[in-house]
C-alpha cells in the first residue's frame, strides 16, 4: 500500500515569543514493513540544527527560530510504501537493549489494578507471543475506546480505573501491564489509515510494541484489537507518550500557546 501523508502542526501565540526551539522525531521508520518514497520535514521560517538517528533507530532533527515568533508551523509530508509484517518490526536497525524498556514512568505507573489485569490476562505457560496477544486483548477489553474521556496527562492506571480512553491510554496500559510481567514494552507513534467504512479511529495514532524473544519487537494496537499492518505508518518510539513525542518544543516568552493539528492520510492508487 502506498500512503500519502500531510501532517501540519501549528502553535499560535497570543503575544510574540522571543525564540522557539524544537526536537522533532517525525520521520517514518525504516524497516521491512516500510519504505519511505519521499519525506519532507520542516519548520516554516526556522533554522535546521543537528540531525541524527538515535539508538532506538529514530531520526531526530533539531530546529530553532529567533524571535519575534508569532507562530510555529511544523510540516511533515511525503509518501510511504507499507507492507503487512503482522506487527513484527523486522530489519529495524537499533541498538538499545530491550531491558531499557522495563523502566516505569509516571504515565505507565503500575498500580494494583494493572498488576491484577496482567496477572489475570495470562499465566506463564504458552509462548511469549501468545502471552503478548492475551495482554493486549485484556487491555482492549478493560478500556473502552471513548474519545474525550481522558486527556494527554491521563496515566495508564487512571484510564484503567475509568474503563475508557483513547489509543494513548490503551498503549500506556499495555506497556504497564507488560512491564509488570517483566516484559519490555514501549510506546510507538505513527499514522493509521482509516478505511472507508469508518474502521480505524484517527489518522495520528499510537500503539505499543512488546518484546518477544525470538521475534524482537512486535506491535500491538489494543485500541483496534489488532497488530499493525499495511494501514500503519510507524514513526518513533519511547518509554511513554511523552518520551516518544513526535514534537518536543519550548518557546521563550510570556505568550499563551494554542495548538492545531491537521493530518491527512490517503492511499495512493498504483
Amino acid at each position, binding site marked *: 500500500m502506498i500512503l500519502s501523508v500531510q501532517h501540519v502542526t501549528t502553535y499560535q501565540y497570543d503575544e510574540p515569543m522571543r525564540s522557539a526551539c524544537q526536537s522533532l522525531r517525525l520521520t517514518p521508520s525504516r524497516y521491512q514493513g516500510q519504505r519511505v518514497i519521499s519525506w519532507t520535514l520542516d519548520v516554516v521560517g526556522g533554522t*535546521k540544527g543537528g540531525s541524527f538517528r538515535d*539508538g532506538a533507530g529514530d531520526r*531526530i532533527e533539531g530546529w530553532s527560530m529567533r524571535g519575534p515568533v508569532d507562530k510555529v508551523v511544523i510540516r511533515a509530508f511525503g509518501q510511504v510504501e507499507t507492507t503487512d509484517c503482522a506487527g513484527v518490526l523486522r530489519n529495524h536497525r537499533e541498538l538499545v537493549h530491550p531491558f*531499557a524498556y522495563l523502566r516505569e514512568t509516571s504515565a505507565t505507573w503500575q498500580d494494583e489494578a494493572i498488576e491484577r489485569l496482567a496477572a489475570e490476562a495470562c499465566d506463564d505457560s504458552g509462548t511469549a507471543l501468545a502471552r503478548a496477544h492475551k495482554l493486549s486483548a485484556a487491555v482492549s477489553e478493560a478500556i473502552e475506546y471513548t474519545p474525550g474521556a481522558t486527556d494527554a496527562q491521563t496515566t495508564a492506571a487512571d484510564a484503567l480505573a475509568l474503563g475508557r480512553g483513547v489509543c494513548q491510554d490503551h498503549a500506556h496500559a499495555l506497556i504497564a501491564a507488560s512491564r509488570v510481567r517483566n516484559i519490555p514494552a514501549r510506546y510507538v507513534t505513527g499514522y493509521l489509515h482509516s478505511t472507508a467504512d469508518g474502521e480505524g479511529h484517527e489518522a495520528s495514532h499510537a500503539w505499543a510494541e512488546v518484546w518477544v524473544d525470538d521475534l524482537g519487537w512486535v506491535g500491538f494496537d489494543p485500541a483496534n484489537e489488532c497488530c499493525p499492518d499495511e494501514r500503519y505508518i510507524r514513526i518513533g518510539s519511547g*518509554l511513554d507518550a511523552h518520551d516518544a513525542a513526535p514534537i518536543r518544543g519550548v518557546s521563550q516568552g510570556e505568550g499563551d500557546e494554542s495548538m492545531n493539528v491537521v493530518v491527512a492520510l490517503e492511499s495512493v492508487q498504483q
Partner: protein
Amino acid sequence: MTDYFNEMFQAGQVRAPYQGLEGWTKSMPAELRQMKQAEAEALFRRIGITFAVYGEGGDPDRLIPFDMFPRVFTQGEWSKLDRGIKQRAKALNCFLQDVYGRAEIVQAGKIPARLVYQNEAFERSVVGFTPPRGIYSHIVGIDLVRTGPDEFFVLEDNCRTPSGVSYMLENREIMMRMFPKLFRENRIAPVDGYGDALRRTLASVAPAKCDREPTIAILTPGHFNSAYYEHSFLADTMGVELVEGQDLFVENGFVWMRTTEGPQKVDVIYRRIDDAFLDPLCFRPDSMLGIPGLMDVYRSGGVSICSAPGAGVADDKAVYTFVPEMIRFYLGEEPILNNVPTWQCSKPDDLKYVLEHLSELVVKEVHGSGGYGMLVGPKSTKDQIELFRHKIEEEPENYIAQPTLALSTTPTFVEEGVAPRHVDLRPYCLVGEQIELVPGGLTRVALTDGSLVVNSSQGGGVKDTWVLAE
C-alpha cells in the same frame, strides 16, 4: 578495641613521610597554633570558599573546618595509588563506551543486563552515540580509605561531576602562604597544575567539527548552588567562561554563548548540573536550568558535554561491585586497588548475611550520597538498626552492605593539642587525550574523637594532602 593504622606513628616511631613535620609541630605552642588557625580561617573567609562538599546540603555559607596538620604520602605510596586510580578511571570509561555501544561485557555475562539497563542513570537517549575519544567521564573522583601501610580500598567512584577539587587547591595555597618554611624544607609535589591539566583535558575532547582553539565554558546551575564557589573558582583558574543555561542557546547545530560582542560558539561544556536538567527537550521538560535543544546538538557532534550524559551508570553503588571485573575484562589486568568487600542485598544469600550482621556492617542506599540514608552498625542504636532492617526487607535491591573499615588516622590539631583522627581521600583523575592525576587530592577528616564519618555535614573537616617528591 580496633587497632587503627596511624599514618604518622608506628610503634612509637615517626614514619618516613611525616619526619619533616615532627619539628614543625613541636615548634608550635598552643598560642601560636590558635593564632595560625584564626589566620587560616580569615583567609578562607576572604576568598569566599564556603560550600558544602559532595552535595551534602546544609548551610551553603558555612565554612568547612580546615585542619592545618597535613596528610602526607611518600612517592612510593603515591605511585601505587597513581597507577591504581588511572587504571580504574580507564576501565570505567571503557565500560561506559561499551554499555552505550555493543555491550560486550553484558554479552559476556560479566555483569547482569538488568543492573545496567534498568539503572536509573542509564540514558537510553545516548545509546549508539560515541563522544569524542570515546570518553564519558573526564573527571573521575575516586574515594579511597586506608587501613594499613599497604592497604587501600576504593569506597566509591564518582564519574559525573565530583566536587571538592577547589579545596584541594585552596588548602595548598593557604598552607603555602602561612608556612612557607615548611615548603622550603620539604619537597612537596605541586598540585597547582590542576587548572591547566583540566583545561587541556577539556580541550582535547572538543568535537570533530571544531576546527580552531576550542571555546570551553563551565555550566553552573547558579549562585544558589552549594558548589557555586567551586564553579567560579575553576572558571577563573582555567580562564574560561562561567555560564548559566540562559546564557547559551542552540542554533544551526551548534551551541552559542551570548556575549557583548554577539554570539560566540561554545565547543566544550563542563557542566556542573545533572543529566535530568540539561535539556528540557530530551530530559525533564520542566527544567529551567538547561539549554533547550542541547542534546540534539550534542548527539549530532556539534558540542562536547563533560561528563557525558549517562556517565552516572558507571558510579552506581551496585555497579561498583563489578569494577574489578571491568578492569580484567577491558584492560586484561589485575586491579591495583581493591574494592571494599560488598554484599548485595538483592542476592538472597547476601541479604541473609547482612540481616544477621547489621550491628557490624555499614549499610548504604544504592543511589544515596553524602552519608545520608546510611547505617553505621557499630555506631547505631538498636532502634536505628531495626528501622534499617525494615527498610532493607522492604526493598532489598535498594541496599548494599560493607564491613566497617578501620580507617587510618593522621595527627590532627584538636583543643588539647594533636590527636589522631580518621581520614579518607579523594583524588581527581583527568581523562582526555591523556590520563592525568595531580599528586594529591582532598583529604577529609572526622574531627570528632572516634568518629568514622568524614562528611562535612557530620563534623568533618579538610586537610592539605602532600605527596613527597623523590
